[in-house]
């Protein structure tokens, strides 16, 4: 192949994301008549996400997957809104935002300031829920709950504002930490929770869906600009098509994961509209008090809400 690109990501091969990445590689191969090739490296086999992003900034032929909180740290803090609590009411609202001019502008800013090009943003990562060893129904139950979150400013700030004792911890330590009671809870999409067998050691799940998390596939702007227009189009088009495959698989995978949780004796709490409203209300503290400290643009919340209007 003329162009070879290494795609590194964290997911295990059995997860929907990995299956869809293989589909992406297949599509790229087909559409380019074999002149372009994606080499896939699941399980962070090619390295940690931060390292891969550094490599792409150095001009390497690398693609990886990131989320809003991650991209916020590469010169465009506004990306963080995709990882903020209770920001979007539905996936459709989020897709409208991703299709908006505002989002296109955000991506261009990232390409300029962070030297990172967003290839596709239509991949569902999953609705993030809280799995805990003590029952949680309402935000006040988070009080004094030691909750493992992603180790970044945005997650720690927003969950602290929700009332939890948020802390970062290596994902590899979480199973033991839950089992021993070092921490009380962990938040992630159900599929990821089940993949790491956390249901064996924590028996309460609240489907608060605090973040409807999407994945952004990214590559280095310097490498991207070496591609011809046709190659760029093949890469991004296939990425979006594979994204649809991912989203189809996601529903089924979530159902299966939920069944695994039920089989393991996890008590799953579905929120009533009232309860959900209480969560959204609790989430507002973050937007009102602390979001500004993260370097967000003036009135970002309203801008994004407007961009998500039908």
């Amino acid at each position: 192949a003329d162009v070879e690109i290494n795609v590194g990501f964290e997911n295990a091969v059995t997860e929907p994301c990995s299956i869809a990445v293989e589909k992406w590689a297949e599509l790229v191969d087909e559409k380019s008549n074999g002149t372009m090739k994606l080499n896939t490296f699941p399980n962070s086999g090619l390295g940690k996400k931060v390292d891969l992003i550094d490599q792409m900034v150095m001009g390497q032929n690398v693609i990886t997957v990131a989320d809003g909180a991650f991209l916020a740290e590469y010169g465009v803090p506004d990306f963080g809104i995709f990882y903020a609590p209770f920001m979007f009411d539905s996936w459709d609202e989020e897709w409208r935002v991703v299709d908006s001019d505002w989002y296109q502008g955000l991506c261009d800013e990232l390409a300029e300031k962070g030297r990172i090009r967003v290839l596709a943003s239509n991949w569902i990562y999953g609705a993030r829920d809280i799995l805990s060893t003590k029952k949680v129904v309402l935000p006040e139950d988070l009080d004094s709950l030691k909750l493992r979150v992603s180790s970044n400013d945005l997650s720690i700030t927003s969950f602290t504002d929700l009332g939890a004792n948020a802390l970062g911890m290596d994902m590899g330590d979480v199973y033991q930490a839950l089992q021993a009671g070092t921490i009380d809870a962990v938040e992630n999409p159900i599929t990821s929770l089940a993949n790491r067998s956390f249901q064996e050691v924590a028996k309460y799940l609240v489907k608060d869906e605090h973040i409807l998390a999407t994945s952004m596939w990214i590559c280095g702007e310097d490498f991207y600009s070496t591609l011809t227009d046709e190659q760029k189009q093949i890469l991004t088009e296939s990425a979006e098509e594979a994204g649809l495959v991912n989203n189809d698989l996601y529903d089924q995978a979530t159902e299966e994961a939920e069944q695994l949780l039920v089989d393991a004796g996890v008590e799953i709490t579905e929120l009533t509209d009232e309860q959900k409203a209480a969560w959204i209300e609790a989430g507002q503290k973050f937007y009102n008090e602390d979001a500004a400290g993260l370097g967000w643009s003036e009135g970002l919340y309203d801008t994004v809400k407007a961009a998500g209007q039908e």
Partner: protein
Amino acid sequence: MKKTDKKAMLLNIDVVIASVAMCALVLATFAGVIARYILSKPFGWTEEVQASLIVWVIFGAAGAAFRTGNHAAIEIFYDMFPAAIRKILNVIILAITVITICYLGYASLEYLKLFATTGRKTSVLHWSYITIYCIVPISCLWQIFNFVLTTIFGYSEQETIESITDEEFEEAKKKG
């Protein structure tokens, strides 16, 4: 104070730096346990501090590890060669080591340049990655210096790894 003592003290500045980083690493981690378990108010910054300090411990002491003879090597085949060939090998080993560590130093400067252009900082504490990683190129120069000092000038600081048992201590006392 003897001249050699002064020299050793000056050389051991790297050990001091690495030890301070190591103690800070232990304290930060231990404080994290107390904050989480006793105060129920875990720190958000523990991981970041750990990942930064460990770089200073390792690269801070990498040069000193030459002086204390801690860096391992396989000597089986080397020992089989006659003395004349060993002399030649020594020169080659010297060259390989100096060139490799120089290259790592150069590469780490290139890596630092990346952070100079992007200005990226750690997520929670907003520490500059340049501050965290600047020890690496310095360490490379220092490693080369220590390597030359130990292999060409035969300098070494033997650390006592044997812990003396009471009997041995008594015996030593009897002998005076």
